[in-house]
């Protein structure tokens, strides 16, 4: 056994057993961050905080929510919204955070794409990030089922129907997923389990992986500069804080993280109290009714772009392209053939590719919500084709890029 001495302080006692000082150094005070990064690098911390808000508010909701088809709607809209003190507040926080987290995830993702932060040693950060995106999507979808309103029911119906695979008619698979012919008690029960247990667990594990993947490559910077972290951190520790190109994660960058989090929370709570209906669809305040199809069925806004890739085509081609859209982002580190890990604006054609991709996904998002009629369905078709073409073109565009 290791040799233990009488502890001189609580810290020393912990140090001998847990090496807390060393952990603190590795994870915080000597985790070196480049100085030339902007507030977009605080989005990761904003995501951590939003996830924490989701977990805490979710725990409170879980105390009163009843996962049965007869009671679910009532437990949410009556018990939680009216009877329980501050139940409404937790519900609004949970609902708004679930929507806003996707806005921040998209900003975070596009930051990564813009600055090339998925390249050269950072592939695993990117892949774990995309796994987080998938896990969050599943978490959001399963959570949306729980109030058992009209949109819960019909979105559940439409999305699980996709698993029939078009002309494959794998209805058995759909029934297996639902545990019934239509969304009913078995369906609600399993999505409840996924939402409150298995998926949050997976998300926490993936956040751990994401952070671990960050530690060795360090975060990228806004100038695409190669930084010698050993030399620069030595400079910092020797006292030349101003001259060094790096800073500590804590408290140096964390103080900025907190500043950004503060501003984000002002925005967030404004939404929670005064502008929440974008995150809590009115249609879902009608109780589920399997005999009454709503006039318009659409997913939450963050799924609209991929929904619109599915919609303009016949069911088989639509499903294939939908599947393509789901996995293609994961492959970005390998589809981008360029040797440059610099901001997109210095990468010629790739800069155009980036802004077109971003704008096109916003157009897809808008069309995904509108009824597929007239000019909207034509725009949707063109956008969906453009999306696919852009990804196919990416390796060719980037392969021709010269080293900058």
């Amino acid at each position, binding site marked *: 056994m290791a040799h233990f001495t009488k502890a001189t302080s609580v810290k020393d006692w912990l140090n001998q057993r847990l090496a807390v000082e060393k952990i603190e150094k590795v994870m915080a005070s000597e985790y070196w961050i480049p*100085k*030339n990064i*902007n*507030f*977009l690098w605080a989005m990761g911390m904003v995501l951590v905080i939003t996830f924490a808000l989701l977990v805490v508010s979710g725990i409170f909701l879980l105390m009163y929510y009843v996962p049965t088809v007869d009671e679910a709607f009532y437990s949410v*809209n*009556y018990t939680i*919204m*009216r009877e329980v003190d501050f139940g*409404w*507040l937790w519900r*609004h926080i949970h609902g708004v955070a679930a929507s806003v987290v996707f*806005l921040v995830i998209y*900003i975070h993702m596009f930051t990564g794409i813009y600055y090339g932060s998925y390249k050269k040693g950072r592939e695993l950060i990117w892949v774990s990030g995309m796994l987080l995106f998938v896990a969050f999507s599943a978490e959001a979808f399963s959570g949306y089922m729980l109030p058992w309103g009209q949109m819960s029911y019909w979105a559940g119906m439409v999305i699980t129907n996709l698993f029939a695979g078009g002309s494959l008619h794998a209805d058995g698979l759909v029934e297996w997923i639902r545990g019934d012919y239509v969304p009913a008690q078995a369906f609600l029960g399993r999505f409840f389990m996924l939402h409150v247990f298995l998926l949050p667990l997976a998300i926490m594990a993936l956040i751990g992986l994401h952070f671990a993947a960050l530690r060795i490559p360090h975060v990228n910077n*806004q100038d695409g500069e190669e930084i010698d972290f050993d030399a620069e951190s030595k400079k910092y520790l020797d006292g030349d*804080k*101003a001259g060094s190109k790096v*800073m500590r994660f804590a*408290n*140096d960058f964390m*103080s*900025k993280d*907190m*500043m950004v*989090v*503060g*501003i984000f*929370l*002002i925005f967030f*709570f*404004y939404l*929670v*109290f*005064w502008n929440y209906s*974008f995150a*809590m669809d*009115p*249609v*879902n*305040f*009608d*109780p589920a009714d399997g005999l009454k199809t709503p*006039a*318009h069925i659409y997913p939450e*806004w963050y799924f*609209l772009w991929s929904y619109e890739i599915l919609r303009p085509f016949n069911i088989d081609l639509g499903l294939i392209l939908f599947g393509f859209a789901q996995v293609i982002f994961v492959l970005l580190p390998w589809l981008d053939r360029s040797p440059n890990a610099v901001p997109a604006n210095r990468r010629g054609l790739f800069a155009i590719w980036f802004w077109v991709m*971003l704008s096109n996904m*916003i157009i897809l*998002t*808008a069309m995904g*919500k*509108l*009824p597929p009629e007239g000019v*909207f369905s034509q725009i949707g078709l063109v956008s969906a084709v453009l999306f696919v073409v852009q990804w196919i073109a990416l390796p060719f565009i980037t392969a021709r890029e010269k080293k900058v």
Partner: protein
Amino acid sequence: MKNKEPIILAVVVFFSLATYYLVEPFAHHVLHKKVIEAKNEGFAYNDLPAITKTGNAASGKDLVVNGGCTGCHSIEVAGMPAPMDAVTAAGAYGVNPPDLSNAGAIYDAKFLADLIKNPAHALKVEHKFDAAKGEMHPMVSYYGMGGDIDQEVADMVAYMQSIAVKPEDVTPAMAYEDACGRCHSVEYEKWTQIGEKPKFKHEKDSLAFDIKVIEYQESLIKYMGKLPPDLSMYIRSRGDDFLSKLIENPQNILEGTAMPRVGVTADAAEKIIEHMKDAGDTKRHEREEIGRNVMIYIIIFAIFAFLWKKQVWRDLH
């Protein structure tokens, strides 16, 4: 190094707002075009003729009793009880004729006058009740007692106004119960079509009450073609604008619907919506208040975070 953060922030805000605009206000406008563009006359009921005669409440009272109104309706404030209980009345008419004590304060005067002469016309349900085809509305038209019918109708309206509470004393619950309560339950306010469900000591009594509600609903379904929905959460699922326009003229929103135009005044309509907020958006006042306090707290947090950052970063440049 030039500070690029303001321009980056502008880009992020621009793309976020563009997305928001497209999936919220713009999509909303496209999806709900019909409701948004529906005509709205501010409950003026311009399609109905104005009352030209000055009513006399005293003679109105006799007309209301002799003209048959009280054969179907109760007028509790005037000591006239309902001829039948709600379930029996619904069996006879499809729905329980509402108590008229406060009709004069809740319904528009022009509307009442038209309703008395031709219910199906005022209620805008002539597509269901076509007198020419012998499809009679359960509330019979008033054909006059032999005098000037317009004078008689004006008298009856004046009588109803004279016995009603002052319009400003109508509460949201009263307005709702009179105008909508005979068709729509509000579970979250314990309201059923036959009244508020009392607290029973014995389960047997509670079940007996539920059975009465079900019997009433059976008649209502026969009359309306379907059970009018429970309105507990409709303030959140439909919103003020939709509800206000639906109340003013259901045919503008749901063409061909069996739901009548109930003919309430603008003020009563506002109160009805207020009542629906009490049911489905109960904590709205608390939300405002807590929202303000949370904002103050978060702004202070943000200021401290900013000061901390400034202090930490002083040595870094």
